[in-house]
């Protein structure tokens, strides 16, 4: 029906000799614009409502329930169902914040040397092996579900830790090792891309001055790839920071201030996954979990922001 209608319109305009038979095309243009525009709107609305929802629920802890910011971010005891000596519920999130940051930094520290070494090898030393075998392999590793890493950690790393240092074997170090395995492919794959993007003319320049391969790598290739490598590290950190399941399986889930690398601890994510199903909506214990989620969300936004800042600096540098 519409087609016929449009045809009539176009015939009319033909007779007035102004627009010649373009109406059907114009219709497609407009429909395309509307459909893709709707998709964009949907994505934007989703992101905005998600951030709004997490923040409004999270902020309710401080506004509705009247928890002082200090006792949330500075308190070291987590037991939302009880009140402390001062009558304020025990909702100190510091143990989880410290736990999250320690496993994130530690896992990056463990993974980075291996990731960087591997990417230098496959870009600078054995490019054929790199592109044919190694890169597809790391891509497969990126896709392995985190629960698999958790299981491996539970079956191998926790008993191994127990044998090595005693105690339960659960703890920050076990979690960091599992996370290091998990983010290793992410960091490797991104830093490989960063090294591969270094123009060959830089290498020619360095070799032409009589520099060896290592001098070239250290003197020119790594400095040029630095923004990309930093991005790789931040992406790895953001994945480690947000990982819940694998960490929860091996960290021991004791909501207490971490005493060392080998004692059970907990992270923002592990407390969230353990607690969310058990608390009634709108109660204080539920609200503080939303506050934890808000901290997580803000941190991931910060990570993304850092990546963008690095990207902009790197782009400016290479112009």
């Amino acid at each position, binding site marked *: 029906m519409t087609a016929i209608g449009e045809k009539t319109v176009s015939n009319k305009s033909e007779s007035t000799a102004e627009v010649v038979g373009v109406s059907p095309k114009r219709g497609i243009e407009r429909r395309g614009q509307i459909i893709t525009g709707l998709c964009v709107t949907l994505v934007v609305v989703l992101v905005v409502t998600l951030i709004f929802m997490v923040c409004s629920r999270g902020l309710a802890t401080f506004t509705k329930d009247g928890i002082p910011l200090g006792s949330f971010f500075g308190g070291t005891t987590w037991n939302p169902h009880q009140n402390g000596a001062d009558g304020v519920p025990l909702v100190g999130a510091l143990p989880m914040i410290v736990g999250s940051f320690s496993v994130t930094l530690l896992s990056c520290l463990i993974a980075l040397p291996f990731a960087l070494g591997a990417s230098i090898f496959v870009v600078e030393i054995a490019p054929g092996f790199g592109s044919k075998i190694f890169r597809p392999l790391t891509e497969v590793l990126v896709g392995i579900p985190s629960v698999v890493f958790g299981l491996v950690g539970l079956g191998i790393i926790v008993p191994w830790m127990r044998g090595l240092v005693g105690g339960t074997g659960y703890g920050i170090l076990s979690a960091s090792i599992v996370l290091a395995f998990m983010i290793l492919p992410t960091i490797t794959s991104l830093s490989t891309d960063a090294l591969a993007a270094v123009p060959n003319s830089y290498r020619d320049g360095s*070799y*032409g*001055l009589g520099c060896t391969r290592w001098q070239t790598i250290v*003197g*020119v290739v790594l*400095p040029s790839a630095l923004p990309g490598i930093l991005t790789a590290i931040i992406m790895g950190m953001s994945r480690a920071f947000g990982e819940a399941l694998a960490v929860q399986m091996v960290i021991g889930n004791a909501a207490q201030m971490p005493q060392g690398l080998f004692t059970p601890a907990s992270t923002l994510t592990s407390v969230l996954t353990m607690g969310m199903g058990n608390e009634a909506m709108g109660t204080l214990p539920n609200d503080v979990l939303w506050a934890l989620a808000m901290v997580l969300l803000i941190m991931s936004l910060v990570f993304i922001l850092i990546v963008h800042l690095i990207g902009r600096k790197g782009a400016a540098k290479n112009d």
Partner: protein
Amino acid sequence: MAESMSVKDLNLYYGDHQALKDITLDMPAGKVTAFIGPSGCGKSTLLRCLNRMNDRIEGCRVEGTVKLGDTDVYENYDVYELRRRVGMVFQKPNPFPLSIYDNVAYGPRHHGKPSKAELDQIVETTLTDVGLWDEVKDKLDHSGLSLSGGQAQRLCIARALAVNPGVLLMDEPTSALDPISTGLVEELAVKVAKEHTVIIVTHNMQQATRISTKCAFFYLGELVEAAPTAQLFSTPKDKRTEDYLTGRFG
């Protein structure tokens, strides 16, 4: 100290393809020698044999001798020492994404442990030699990538000269530059040749006549003719040279 280079019975293969055929050529010390010829004639390939940059290309095989002074560069030279003594400037200016200072200091730093004062001295001298000092002395900490094309190419020349090579290879160094920058680089080539023998590949025949004392014409992997530049351009012996110089092909 300018050094001479010579090539004798040189054959070069990329896999099965022979890219250079029986090249024999002397490049005298302290002079500018130019390689001319149409695209794909092997002139850049020969240039890259002189400091063994071709070693990095897989499937590239070289037969014959290349000498720096009296020493065979394929038999008796450590490749890194060779490349320090035979510097190279590329077609497209390729300053490192480091500061202007670090670009020039890059070579000296990797060939010894110069003190800060020595480095400062080297940087100032070489940048003055290439006529860049007055333009960049207040922004030595700026990125080498912030320079214009002509400045960047002169920075690359300074970078190569900073390790005091006996020979400087230039692979079409002005093909990406504007006429004024081209003029500056040509003057520079003539000037530095006294201390560092210059061997230059060029597409531009006028450039060869302007700056070189010896000129070699290549065609399809063969060295057709090599002679003092004035002689080659006025009385070419080979028909192919004459045809190329008069613009009948190329």
